[in-house]
């Protein structure tokens, strides 16, 4: 956190809103030009991902959780991703209604993104978007993924703490185990505690989580919550603080930075690959696979600006 006595400049919503569009819409060349020489935020910013199946209550939970973070006098930026229609490319961005129902907190900024080309539960240029928010004097940067598929893998490397949200219901457990969800989370939330089976599910999930190999390892807590009633939010907040403290004392900052940077570079290359293959002439796909491969790879780079 910054000096508590010096008043912070208010968030310039118009300017930041525009800057986010620029980076979210950017071609790779432009994104790189923005990032060139960028060292990242000087301060320590906490990045938290919220993922889990569709409709489990991620946005509702984020709405509650944000209030807990704001109560610590932290400035909070939220990126909420909803899926783009594969038919029209359009999207209904519905997360934010549940995240900032009142929207009058001076220290909160919420931005909705459509997943666009991203097939991994995230959005185009998401790594750049998060880096930009970080550079804008936020203390916490939260990202809610699309509620489907295997989004937890990609977001994993982009955040410090990953919250996986589940809810009671038939088949959930099997689904979660199959999707590998139980290997990626730092904190699990069983939401909709008001529904039958929630308590049992907490015990079930806790019993199948990977157990720490040593006392230094992090044991993911399982928090019972109701975004509807507000129960469990204080516990979730405490679990996040505990995870931050554990990271600070157990993870090497240089290793964490390398992991983050590797994910960012991979995302940029993947996006660049899509630019090249989407923009290629039909003729490229008339040659044999090996020739097309080499032509595509050769087309990836361009002179550094």
């Amino acid at each position, binding site marked *: 956190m910054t000096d508590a006595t010096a008043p912070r400049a208010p968030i310039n919503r118009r300017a930041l*809103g525009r800057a986010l569009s620029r980076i979210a819409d950017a071609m790779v060349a432009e994104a790189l030009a923005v990032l060139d020489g960028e060292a990242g935020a000087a301060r320590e910013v906490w990045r938290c991902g919220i993922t889990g199946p569709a409709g489990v209550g991620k946005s509702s939970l984020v709405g509650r959780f944000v209030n807990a973070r704001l109560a610590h006098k932290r400035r909070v930026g939220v990126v909420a991703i909803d899926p783009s229609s594969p038919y029209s490319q*359009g*999207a*209904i*961005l519905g997360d*934010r209604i549940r995240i900032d129902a009142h929207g009058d907190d001076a220290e909160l900024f919420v931005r909705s993104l459509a997943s666009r080309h991203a097939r991994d539960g995230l959005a185009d240029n998401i790594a750049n978007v998060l880096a930009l928010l970080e550079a804008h004097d936020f203390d916490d940067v939260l990202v809610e993924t699309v509620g489907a598929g295997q989004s937890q893998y990609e977001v994993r490397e982009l955040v410090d703490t990953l919250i996986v949200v589940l809810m009671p219901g038939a088949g959930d457990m099997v689904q979660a185990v199959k999707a590998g969800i139980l290997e990626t989370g730092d904190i699990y939330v069983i939401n909709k505690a008001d529904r039958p089976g929630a308590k049992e599910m907490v015990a079930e999930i806790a019993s199948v989580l990977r157990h720490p190999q040593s006392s230094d390892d992090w044991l993911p807590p399982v928090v019972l919550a109701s975004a509807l009633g507000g129960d469990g939010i204080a516990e979730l907040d405490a679990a996040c603080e505990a995870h931050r403290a554990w990271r600070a004392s157990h993870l090497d900052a240089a290793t964490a930075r390398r992991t983050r940077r590797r994910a960012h570079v991979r995302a940029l290359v993947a996006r660049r690959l899509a630019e090249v293959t989407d923009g290629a002439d039909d003729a490229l796909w008339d040659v044999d696979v090996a020739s097309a491969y080499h032509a595509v790879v050769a087309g990836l780079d361009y002179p550094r600006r």
Partner: protein
Amino acid sequence: MATQLQGKRILIAKPGLDGHDVGAKVIALALRDAGAEVIYTGLRKTPDYIARVAAEENVDAVGLSILSGSHLELVKLTAAALKREHADDVPLFVGGTIPRGDWNALKESGVDCVFDSEMSLEQIVDEVARRLA
């Protein structure tokens, strides 16, 4: 497949106290089907909230759906709120139950286009696309 609005971001908002948002939702879906990324605010939002969302989301247009009869006042308040957020350059559209006699007054308050209930969804989408082109 219609893609007239691809790449556009549009806020559909309901200021004021009326409790019906079927019309607003139908418009939101039609805009989505034309390729737009639509942020829908839900019912009963204040002009300040709407302006803040417009700025944060950097939308290309704000569409207000008003059935309560207080459109003259709500539009004035929303236009003023947009100005406070430095977002008064964002085109402002209004739809709902708006008597023709009020159109000029709305335009003088900063509304770019009024959609009346006689227009088909297709006409509305075409008009939005034309104005954002």
